[in-house]
Structure formats: C-alpha cells, structure tokens
C-alpha cells in the first residue's frame, strides 16, 4: 500500500512540477545573455538530418562566445525538440519567442515546418534563419532563406547535364511533397523551353520513406534504354534515398549509362551508404565538404573537434547555418541591437565569407548569393566537384518558370517593402 501511495505522490509531484514550469514565464532580461533559439527535430523521422544542425549551431554559438559574444554579451542557446511534429513546431516557436524571449531562431528543415512556424514569426515579429534548399515561392519579412532556391540548385544542375553531359531524356523522380512537386514543375517548363519533347520527360512520385524501389528503378531502366542519353533528376527525400541507390546499384544502372543528379543527397546521407556502386552519380549543392579552401578546412577541423568524432562529415545545410549565423551576428553588430526590426533593416546587404571561397550577400528578397557546384560521388562518400558556376548566383524567391509567379518580385527594402510585389500591376500582392 505505502509503496503505491509513494508512487502516486511521485506522479502528482511530477504533474505539479510540469504544470508549474510550463506556466511560469521567464522574466525579461536586458543585460543578461542574448538567447538564440534552435528549433530542430531531435526525434522522429527528421531527426536523421536535423540533429546535426542543432550540433552545428551549438558549435557556432560556442565559438562566438569564445570570441567575446555579440555586443559584449554572451550568447545562450535554447534547444527544443519539435519531434518531427509540425503543429508542435509552431507551439515551440511561440514558446521560444514569448517565453524564452530568444532574439533569433535558427531552425526547421522541411517546408511544412517552415510553413507551420511562419505565421508565428510574423505575428510575434521575430527572426527565423532557414538553412535548407527549398522550393522557393516565398519571401517573408521575418524569414531569411540561407539554403538554395530552385535557381541556385536545380536549374544549374539541369544546365550542366544538358550542356556538359549531353542528356536528352529526363526522369524527374521525387518524393510526393511540395519541394519536388514545385521543382519538377519548374524543371519541366525549363526543359520544354529548351526544346525537350514531352515524351522525353518522365515524372514519378513516391511516398515518404519509400523502401521498395524495384518497379520504379526498372521503369527508369526501360525509359533509359531508348538510345538517347538519359539522366535522373532526383528530388527524393532523405530516407528513401538509401534503398533507391541500393536498387540502382543492384540493377546495374551505372552512372555512365544513366547518371542520377540529386538535390537532397549530401555527405550526411552518403555516410549511411556503401558508395562504391554509386561512384559517378551526381549531386548539386552550394557547398561540398571536399572543397579545398582554408575557411572550409578550419570549419571541418572545428566541427570534428566539437563533435569528438574524426569521421563526422559536414554538409550544405550546415554551411547555410554557418552563413546565416554569421550574417545575423554581423547585422546585430551593425544595428547595435538585437531588436528584430533593427536587424531586418540592417541585414540586407551584409556580406560574409562562405566556406567555398566566395562571399554570401543577403539580398533584398531575404535570399542569399551562392555558388552552384556539381559534384560526383566518390567511393569514400565525398563529392568531387566536376563543374561550378562562374559567378555567384542570386537566390530567386519567385520562379520565372511558373506562370503565376513570374511577375512577382520580393524586395524588403524601401520603397517596395513587399514579399510578393507584382511587377505588372505594381502593387504588393493583391493590395493588402
């Protein structure tokens, strides 16, 4: 009896504790540390990709603190787990801003996560740095898109395949969600404009976490056996890639016959794969771990030391966080304040070095400039850069290859101050 009463007391205590902590708001601080929110999934399906980003943010904050912090104040990371649950992401974003009173948030991976938290950032006027390549078609005052938009990844990759590999037949394979759907819409239009016939484009969508690729890979093989050089443009999402590449390897599709160019496969994903059968397949990114620059060498060294594992790799979204974080620091120093409005005003035009030897500039549409690199998979899980753009490419919020978005522009500077400015009607959105 007494034992179970004890347990009961414990349970009640836990409940009371939980309730009281959740209910007590934090007190406002002016001169304490500057808080930075980290909003990534540490459990659930997206933990695979996002856990690393949490760690890289912790490292960047630690490094900044060693340099003396920002505005003479230390930075304090606030980590939350959104558990791959998107309504929970919105709740946590609200909590970070209202309760923890963070000054900026670095987070999200999926589009749905961004879409889910976006109204919260708008309402509470805070800052979100979003580090992943995405479908575009968005520009919001409170969000900074440090990953690639389609014109910084997909279109250059297709250009490369068309001009430098001589591809004439295209398979657009993706996971059925908004990023592949939009990217493939854009690419389809782009290819047709370039004179590719309808018959030479095959579009295929699969569910999340698809594991049985036998049918689709054999379809691709059949599609590619027509005699024309064929390539697969893959927007297949993280988890489904391993079985996809395994099936490609097993069915004997070799990169010389049908190269696959992927937009979501980086060093991190390859670390879970035996890459020997994949050598020669491609990926398009704005950063590769193998890029040989002093900045990158320093970053990799700091990262492996921070994580305590010599084998850990770096990847493109990590670079995006690196750039985003440095831009925020720069903007805060420039504004001499962490106030979101001041940061938003000062961040446009901020230039910070990226890890590939160039500079990233925050544009008026809250996207950044990036180089585009095409890499071939090597058997050690790294990429060998075979092609890169001559200049930095400016991130385009609204694609010119979608009829409805072609006339739209985003510009968060005076006098336009609008995320969806219609250049035809010269109004912001529909006037609201």
């Amino acid at each position, binding site marked *: 009896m007494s034992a179970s009463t004890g347990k009961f007391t414990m349970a009640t205590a836990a409940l009371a504790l939980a309730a009281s902590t959740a209910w007590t708001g934090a007190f406002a601080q002016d001169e304490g540390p500057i808080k930075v929110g980290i909003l990534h999934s*540490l*459990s*659930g*399906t997206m*933990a*695979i990709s*996002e*856990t*690393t980003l949490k760690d890289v943010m912790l490292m960047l904050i630690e490094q900044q603190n060693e340099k003396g912090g920002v505005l003479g104040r230390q930075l304090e990371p606030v980590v939350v787990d959104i558990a791959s649950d998107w309504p929970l992401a919105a709740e946590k974003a609200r909590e970070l801003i209202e309760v923890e009173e963070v000054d900026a948030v670095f987070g999200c991976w999926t589009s749905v996560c961004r879409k889910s938290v976006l109204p919260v950032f708008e309402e509470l006027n805070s800052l979100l740095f979003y580090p992943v390549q995405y479908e575009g078609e968005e520009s919001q005052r409170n969000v900074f898109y440090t990953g690639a938009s389609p014109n910084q990844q997909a279109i250059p990759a297709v250009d490369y395949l068309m*001009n*430098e*590999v*001589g591809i004439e037949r295209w398979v657009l394979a993706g996971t*059925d969600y908004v990023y592949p759907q939009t990217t493939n819409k854009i690419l389809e239009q782009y290819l047709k404009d370039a004179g590719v016939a309808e018959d030479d484009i095959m579009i295929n*969508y*699969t*569910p999340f*976490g698809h*594991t*049985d690729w*036998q*049918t*689709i890979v*054999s379809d691709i*093989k*059949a599609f590619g*056996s*027509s*005699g024309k*050089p064929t390539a697969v443009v893959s927007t297949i999402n993280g*988890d489904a890639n*391993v*079985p996809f590449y*395994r*099936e490609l390897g*097993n*069915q*004997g599709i070799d*990169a*010389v016959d049908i*190269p696959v160019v992927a937009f979501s496969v980086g060093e*991190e*994903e390859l*670390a*879970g*794969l*035996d890459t020997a*059968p994949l*050598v*020669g397949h491609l990926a398009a990114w704005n950063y590769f771990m*193998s890029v*040989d620059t002093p900045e990158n060498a320093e970053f990799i060294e700091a990262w492996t030391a921070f994580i305590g594992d010599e084998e850990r790799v770096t990847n493109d979204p990590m670079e995006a966080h690196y750039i985003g974080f440095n831009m925020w620091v720069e903007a805060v120093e420039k504004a001499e304040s962490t106030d979101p409005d001041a940061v938003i005003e000062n961040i446009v035009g901020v230039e910070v070095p990226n890890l590939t030897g160039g500079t990233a500039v925050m544009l008026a549409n809250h996207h950044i400039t990036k180089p585009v690199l095409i890499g*071939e998979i*090597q*058997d*050690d899980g*790294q990429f*060998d850069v*075979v*092609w890169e753009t001559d200049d930095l490419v400016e991130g385009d919020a609204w694609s010119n290859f979608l009829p409805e978005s072609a006339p739209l522009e985003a510009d968060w500077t005076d006098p336009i101050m609008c995320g969806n400015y219609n250049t035809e009607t010269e109004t912001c959105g529909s006037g609201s």
Partner: protein
Amino acid sequence: MAASLDPGHRLRPLPNCPSGTSLMIRTFAARWLACLALGLLFSLNGAYAQEAPIDPAGPVADLVRQLPDGSYRDRGAVIGELAATGDSALVPLLRTLEAGELFLLTETGAIVTIEPEGDEVVATDVLTGEAIGTFGEDAVEEIRVNNLIRREVRAAVSQLTLMSDSPSVRIAAAREMFNGANADSIPMLDEALAQEDNETVRAVMEEVRAVAVLRSDAGPDETAAAVDTIIERGGRQALGILQASLGSASADVAPAIEAGIARIERNLALWGVGQNIWYGLSLGSVLLLAAIGLAITFGVMGVINMAHGEMVMLGAYTTYVVQEIIRNAAPGLFDYSLAFALPLAFLVTALVGIAIERGVIRFLYGRPLETLLATWGLSLIIQQAVRTIFGASNREVGNPSWMSGAFEVGGLAITNNRLWIIVFSLVVFAVLVFVMKKTALGLHMRAVTQNRRMASSMGIRTPWVDAMTFGLGSGVAGLAGVALSQISNVSPNLGQGYIIDSFMVVVFGGVGNLWGTLVGAFTLGVFNKLLEPHTGAVLAKVLVLVAIILFIQKRPRGLFALKGRAVEA
C-alpha cells in the same frame, strides 16, 4: 604510385595501390579508381603491351594534347576523333583518362601521369612513356572527366578493342557499340567480322552491324535483313532502335519494323508481368520477414507488440556493429559478416525480448490491449536509446559481394540480394514451423497459449515457456533486421517503417497461423506490385490497405482463421 604507361612497365604486376596517407580526399579516391581500372586493363588487355607507343609528333599525339581544352562536349568530340584513328595503343591512355589519372603539366602542355614523391610529383609523359622530371603539386592539373567523357571513352575503347585477342573483350566491346553504331562503324565491323572465329562474338557483332546498317543508307534488302536481325535479338534496346528508325525508314521496310516493334513489345509485356510477379515475391519476402516474428509474439501469444519494429531495428544495428568490427579487425572476413551477424542478432534481440517479457509483459497476460500501451512505451525508449548511443543518422551496412549485382533469366532481371532475401525468408519460415510443430518447446508454446492453466497443471513451466516464446519471436525479428539492413536504411526509425505493414500481414493471414502469415505476405506483396505500374506507388499502397479492410469484412478472422474454442480466447 600511379601506374606508368611506359610499355616496359606495363607487364609488371598490378602496381601497388595507394595506402591513404594523402590529405586530398579527391585525389585519393581517384587513385583507387585508377588502380581498379588499370587492374582491369592489365588483366584483360595484355595484348596492347607489345604495341608501339604513340608517335609524339604524329596527328594522334596532337589530338591527345587537345584533351584538356574546352568544354566537356569539345573534349568528348576529341575522344571521338581519337577513336576514329583506330590506334589501339590509345586504349591504356583512355582508361587512365576515365579513371581521372591523367594530368596536364601546365608549364609545357604535356599530358602526364604523376607519382607523388614527398611534397612533389614525378611526371611521366604518356606519349613517350618517359619521366620528365619532378614538379611541385601545383605544376600539374588534373584533366577532369565527367559522365560524358566516360561515355565517350567507353565508346572509343569498344571500337578500339573490337579486334582484341580475348573473346570476352571483343564481346564486351561489341555490346558496348550496340547503341552507338552507325554507318561509319560498318567498315570497322566488317573487318572485325572477317577475322572473327568465335560464334558467340560473331553473333553479337552481326547484331551491332545490323544496327549500323539500319542507320546507314543501305539498300532495302540489306536493311530488311538488318531489321530481322534486330527483331530476333529483342529487348528494350532493340525496341528503342527500331522506334527511332521508324521515322526515316523507307516504305519498303516500315511495315516490317512496325511488326517487329509490336512483337518485341508483346514479348516485353509478357516478361513485364513476370518481372512484376518477381518484384511482388520479393516485396512479399520482406513483409514475411518483418511479420514473422510478430506472428509469434502477436499471433501466438496475443501480445500486441508495438516494440516489434524496434527488435527488427536492433537486429539491423547488430549487423552494423558486427560489420564495423570486421572492417577494423579483419577486413578479409567482410563477405562472411552476415554469417556472424545472424546468430548474434538472434541472441541480442532474443535476450532483449526475454528481458521485456520478464520485466513488463508477464504482468499483462490476458490484457492484450494493455500490452499495446506498454510495448509502445518500450518502443519509444528503445528508439531513443539507440539514437543516443549510435546517433540519429543512418549507419552504413554494406552488401557482401555475393549479395551484390544481378543476373538475367530470359527477360527477367533478378538481383542477387533480393533472391537471397527470398531464400532467407523461406528458410526462417521453415525453421520456425519446424520449431513450433516438431520440438518440445513448440509443443509447450502451443499448449500454454491454448490453455495456460491446463498446461500449468500438466507440469509445464508456463513462465519459462512465455519467456522463451517471446524471446523466439523477438529473435526472429532480429534475424529479419539483418536481412532488412541489406536493402534499407539502418536508422533508429527503421522499425517504425515496418510495424504497420507487419500487423496488416499477420491480421490478413489470420492471427495465430504461421501459414497464414506466409500466404498473406506473398499475396499482399504480389498484389501491390501488380497494381504499382498502373496506379503509382502511393495509390497502390492505399488500394492494398482498402483491400485489406474489405477482406476483413468478408473474413473477419483473416485468411486462415483458427477454428474452435481457441478463437474465443
């Protein structure tokens, strides 16, 4: 360290491959590739070793010097021109190029291979085969290759090796030419055919020649004969070639081509059905593996074991750990890694299963729905524990060499790993049926599940049997994990992906019946794969689920319902 192309050196055994001290990952990888490619070259193309090197002043050498210039397309064209020279001494050079081992000495414009020496490199001119001297690493520039260059190199090499001494090289060369053959290839093919004495090679060459003829402006009789040859060969490539030629075909041969296309398509469609059934069986074997442990813990014991997927995951992680140890300690044993992993995975997951049974489940017998809650909690804990220990990202589990690759049976492409998994699933199933039906343990298990008190009265140690049964079910899940690690991600979420499908299979087959699980798994697999080409992957899965729901209405206790009193328990 890179192989020199000096003829005097070419007959040496395979040069030592680099041992990974280089900091530059890229070059390191490239070197391995070079080693591989050259190894292949040495084993196959001994014949070229005797031929004279390329004349450094001749037109061929001029072309070689153009290799580093211009876009990939321009350089691809240069390779085409090189192939047209028919100089088979170029083959090693092209192979080296393909491997990314060819460098440009920026100072003199010489094309060289390099061998590192301390911080510097020793360059060897590929044309003369002579060492030029020692240079700084910056003095040489890799001649970049991409898939276009590789494609051109392959085509060129196939043309240049068409008259090799080795029949296997000749046949490979002819096959490689099949797609790219055109009117220009005819003289070359005729020459090769004239001296060909091997019937198999000859047949392939004739097919290639037919393609070339079809694409040339040969007379109607010759074209008609070529069309027949191509139709006879069949397959997707032939279909593509015929379809492409239809546009430019003369009225005389067009009907024959059309008939040929129809015939090949019919043939392909027929094989396609067979292929889909094969895919379905393969999917079914995966479902069977995933579900069969559950058929014991859920089907036989009545525990709604939501942690079943995590047992599968633990099995996969055991494979990972075993492979890591083997990679570090005894790389030579890698092909046997699964043989070590299987018993270990069984042991690990069976022990975890027994611990779960003793620690939690035994308090919950007779309350099946509550086992759902407890095991769900356990599954969260196990997942997070694995995530904490191994990290959230995917882990690399390799295929042993005997599980890689594919072979063809008629028009069916059969991949080795899928074949092994089907075999493995059936073996596991057979063993399990044997254990249940023919051993004392199996007898006790059935007795306890059918009537616990009676069994207990007969002197069976029911708690021990419970633990063993749950351990067996979990252990089998661990075995499944080993197999699934070969085709899928090894991540903490692995189990979640299979748990729902596993329950569907067990329920569809009929709870408590192992044969039901077998038939259920293969039925669902084949059904799914037959639908997929028509509906797409997502809808196929939705339709399968709807079909299960409807089927359960018709047979509320699954495919093979247990009869009698046990049903009501």
